């Protein structure tokens, strides 16, 4: 329930949320731990931790390359759970795993949920798992008191938004435009329309992501959504400074500067 608490806290304080994405194991698991702690220090609302996968069909080139770098470190979900367990000694920032379905399936869904809960993971977002296909998994997550975050897209019909509203918990992730992940120069109007459509069906907080890469864009998103997700822009910095000994400091600065000053 860390996610729910965090969002109600935001509401009380009348502020909005910031959700960074990083790929686990990029550049390596030890630094991922430090990066999570840094992102917690700038008061991230939730941290999305990407599970690297060999075939990231919904990702743009920046996150594809992060996945490739991470996979070279030869680890799996078990090691990611160990990492989260370790992180939990120092922070209660909500953490969700952002994954493709196959690595989760091969881990075994029942065991996955039990181990995730045990490690201190708060929920899952599965890129290629739509509500129709998610029944078993979302029941298991519920049983273990974990959140299932679903994506909605500008192409989603009202019927589909309703279906998501029935299954989702924690928050809902609105994809700002059709396309793969990746930073863009401009934000799109379709996100605002989508968020407003979703509000008819659900009271859950709604985060907007895909393409957000500057503090201005975060501020823009905050006008109509509850949180902004920034992925590729941060991952690109990690790519740039991966072997720099000041990596963690640099990312903390970069992510901190994505928060609008007011």
């Amino acid at each position: 329930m860390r996610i729910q608490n965090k969002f109600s806290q935001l509401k009380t304080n009348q502020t909005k949320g910031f959700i960074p994405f990083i790929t686990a194991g990029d550049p390596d698991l030890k630094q991922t731990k430090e990066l999570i702690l840094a992102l917690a220090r700038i008061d991230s609302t939730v941290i999305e931790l990407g599970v690297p996968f060999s075939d990231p069909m919904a990702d743009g080139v920046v996150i594809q390359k992060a996945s490739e770098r991470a996979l070279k470190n030869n680890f799996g979900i078990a090691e990611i759970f160990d990492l989260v367990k370790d992180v939990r000694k120092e922070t209660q920032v909500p953490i969700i795993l952002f994954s493709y379905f196959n690595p989760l399936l091969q881990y075994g869904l029942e065991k996955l949920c039990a181990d995730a809960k045990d490690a201190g993971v708060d929920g899952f977002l599965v890129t290629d798992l739509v509500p129709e296909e998610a029944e078993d998994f979302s029941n298991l997550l519920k049983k273990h008191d974990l959140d299932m975050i679903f994506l909605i897209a500008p192409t989603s019909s009202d019927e589909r938004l309703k279906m998501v509203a029935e299954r989702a918990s924690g928050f809902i992730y609105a994809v700002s435009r059709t396309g793969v992940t990746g930073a863009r120069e401009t934000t799109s109007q379709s996100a605002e329309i989508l968020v407003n459509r979703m509000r008819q069906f659900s009271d859950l907080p709604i985060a907007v992501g895909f393409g957000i890469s500057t503090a201005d864009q975060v501020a823009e998103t905050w006008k109509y959504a509850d949180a902004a997700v920034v992925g590729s822009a941060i991952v690109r910095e990690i790519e740039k400074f991966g072997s720099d000994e000041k990596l963690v400091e640099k990312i903390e600065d970069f992510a901190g500067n994505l928060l609008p000053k007011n």
Partner: protein
Amino acid sequence: MNFQPNERGYWGEFGGRFVPETLMSPLEELTSAYFAIRDDSEFQAEFLNLLQDFSGRPTPLFYAKRLSETLGGAKIYLKREDLGHTGSHKINNAIGQVLLAKRMGKKRIIAETGAGQHGVATATVCALFGLECVVYMGTEDMRRQELNVFRMRLLGAEVRGVDSGSKTLKDAINEALRDWVTNVDTTYYLLGSALGPHPYPLMVRDFQSHIGKEARQQILEKEGRLPDLLVACVGGGSNSIGLFHPFLQDENVQMIGVEAGGKSSKLGEHAARFMEGGKVGVLQGTKSYLLQDDRGNISLTHSISAGLDYASIGPEHAYLHDLGRVEYVSANDEEALKAFQTLSQTEGIIPALESSHGIAHAIKIAPEMSPNEIMVVNLSGRGDKDVNQVQEMLA
């Protein structure tokens, strides 16, 4: 026995739609458009007309007399998909889907290709109708199927090389999906095998079923009875399911799908999903058998033939495998290469390296069968595209 998928595109536990949310409404739209034309006589007449006049169907069922007699066993018939326009069965599906795309008002067609045969077929039909065509192809496949790259460009298509992963079919599909998810409004994704999210496996199978329907009629005309055995190579599974499907209810007709055995049975050195390393999982929109490691990452694959070099297999095949209705075996690189030469020399037909896998298995088992038994092998394509590669390998 029911061989139709359920409403959500499942054959048993296989199939479904495992895609990003953005693609769900487009897939729903595609499904209803497809079901609307499935029983529409006007559409089917237009489709059939193009299959005949543009592609040259029906393709012959040819009795391979010298091959049969040399092997001294079963009577071997070849279903001559190599004689269809563009030289493989891929044209059947390309015509069907382009007609559908036109009905849906789409003006931009994208496709993936492995061996280049599906890319060439798609580029061909797009040229026929004046549609924009973009084909994604792994750079490794571009290298080994250079002739097809040139053919596609000649036909006016744009070929985009894909440099990620193993640089083969799987990676081309990833890139095509990324394009589709970005340009859903304007773009039709013309998937080339019985793979991917519902309704593709069903739709591709239906369009390819003309192979089996014709073969059934032709063998009845020639032999007065159904064959004992059907053999086809299996990449994603479209030529094989096209041949098999119209016979599935005929209990006495046995079927064998031949996967690519590659260099060895070691994971990474073959593309036989029912062999070692093949476990149920989800890839590129569908649940099926996959070559993968313990952590669910997709394994690299290898085959001498680009068209069979893929880590997953169509969901209907996974179902038929578990049901025991179809047997799946593999032929390795060496056997396929040998069959390529054998068929060339005994029948004057140069087969595609993909089809050579089916031929290789026929050569293996025909001698154990009796001369009263009849086997139909799907000759899914012609081998012109492979001649350069084979020349290098034999040098």
